[in-house]
């Protein structure tokens, strides 16, 4: 029984799928955001797996940057969500359809 890279990649794929479906299905904006974080983590896992397999530190460096940018993104995203909730408390993702064509 060897823990080959395939297992990690499979796990990452599953996490990603769960996160994607959650994003598509949930309406609470914050939960959708958390699903995005899930997807990012799946990507990080993939990066690290490949870093080990290809024996290259660049994969881990990439994860490092993803982490930082995710943090920044969360900050700004939550700021936006706060602004939205100010206008309409209790808004869900479905209430924000101003761009309907």
């Amino acid at each position, binding site marked *: 029984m060897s823990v080959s890279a395939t297992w990690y990649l499979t796990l990452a794929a599953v996490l990603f799928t769960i996160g994607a479906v959650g994003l*598509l299905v949930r309406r609470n904006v914050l939960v959708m955001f958390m699903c995005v974080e899930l997807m990012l983590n799946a990507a990080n896992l993939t990066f690290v797996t490949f870093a080990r397999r290809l024996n290259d530190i660049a994969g881990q460096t990439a994860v490092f940057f993803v982490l930082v940018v995710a943090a920044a993104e969360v900050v700004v995203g939550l700021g936006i969500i706060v602004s939205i909730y100010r206008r309409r408390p209790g808004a869900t993702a479905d209430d924000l359809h101003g761009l309907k064509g």
Partner: protein
Amino acid sequence: MLRVAFLIPLLPLAGFVILLLSGRKLGNPLAGWLATIMVAASFVVTVVVFAGLFRLPAGGRSYTQNWFTWISAGHLHVNMGLLVDPLSMTMAAFVTGVSALIHLYSIGYMEHDEDFPKFFLYLNLFVAAMLLLVLANNFLLLFLGWEGVGVCSYFLIGFWFERDTASSAAKKAMIFNRIGDAAFLVALFLIYERTGSLDYHTVFSHLGSVGEPSLVAMGVLLFAGAVGKSAQIPLYPWLADAMEGPTPVSALIHAATMVTAGVYLMCRINPILYRAPDAAHVIAIIGAVTALLGATIACAQNDIKKILAYSTISQLGYMFLAAGIGAYDAAIFLMLTHAFYKALLFLGAGSVIHAMNDDQDVKTMGALARLMPITAVTFFIGWLSIGGLPVFSGFWSKGDVLLNGYGFSPALWVVGALTAVLTAYYLGRAYLLVFRGQQRWVEARKPGDRAGLKPHDPSWVMSVPLIVLGALSAVGGLINLPIHPDLDFLDRWLSPVFASRLFQHHWGLGGVWTFALIDAALALLGVALAVALWGHASERPAFEPVVLQRAWYIDWAYDRFIARPSTEVAIETSSVVEAKGIDGAVNGFAWLVRSTARHLRKVQTGYVRNYALGLAGGLVLVLAYVLTRAS
């Protein structure tokens, strides 16, 4: 001296431009005098150039003057330029000369018309275009002049366009012309394709390498163009209707100049016709039949201008007959004399119409000779000329045609002879009904009596051209007498153009005199018939059958079987194909775009989750693609 040749078409064109810009200011009669002077000046230049050409030795009488390159596209190079040679100068001379006289006449005829300057504007443009046509040194420039005279014909026939009949006649003329022009264009394409050029010199020198079927096609197609322009069978009905235009127009365009352009074209392409005898035969036969047809119809017409119109068709038929059998110099000779006497007859008719208060029915005229002596005498001279009585010009020119006709084919001679008798007859009938016999109109008792008429000879501006043309008709034959080898000036002058392609049956003096006598006899027969039948009577239904009055019902047939169905098709097309089909397609396309947009808009729901779904779908597709490549 030859270098001033460019002025020949330029002067009338300048007249046109000046009148276009300031015609109204010049007004009546100054505009008319300006136009006349321009054309007269062009005539003077023509004479100068003619003299210059005459000075050159007989074999080298050809001068080309290229002004600039008109078209240069790939292998096609067409210049705007002139060819001064005996044929073109002969044409230019009588065109400018007769035009100048008719311009002068028009100053008097159109005196009371409020569009006086416009008339001369069109006339000058016409003369410019006609000169361009005859002086061109390549087919395309000729075609430019060809179209130009066609368009001027349209303008001038429809000059009094408020009249429905006039505007319809103008349209009819244009349409018939266009049919011929289409054939002309196809001929041009063929010529260019086979010889690589449209320039006369180049084309004619390359004819040796062109196959005979192509040459026959070229000849026939160019003749088809001439048929449209010169009113031969089957494109002749427009000429009778063209009489709706003012009489000077009929004289100039539909007698002396425009309609002769077709004959000029046939003479110009004599190298092609020489190599395509089948085409030439077609030309001759159609010419002969048309001559007879026109003459028969003219026998029963009551409108004086229509008589002259059908007479023109008939005489043109003679010219094509001559050209078709290869007697080009005879054709040109006849064209020249015909210009004189036909213009004369038309101008005389114009005087009569003026005197009769615009009534054109010969049945309501009569006994005008003593009241309008100048008109009567000149008309009489015109009749004798066209009838072919010796010694008038028509005798010599028509005799030339008939002489060569017999040499070619006795059958054609018979047709021509019959036509000659009829010609003398119907024009005699016209003369007698108008100027002789009983007075069938009411004289004005006192001045101001509107119902009555007071016919009189016209003023000098209208009489002088009549007299000049009368003189020319009488003595014009002297330029080409066949009775002595030294006297046929015109033939010798023109021979270099026709080189060895001229058909001339050498008869010897005895044969020439025999035919001369026969021609005289035919003419006298026609005259005698006319005098016998119409000297005193004015109604002879037996000799004016309805079928001839209706011109063999040919025009009726065109209307019934071609014009009406075409109109129906046009209406059908406009209401169905255009409105539903094409408009429907365009509108339908717009509808399609709008409808597609309406449906596509539904994709933009505004919900982020839907958009994310789209992203996910796209991702799945991309992965699928990657899978197909990676495995």
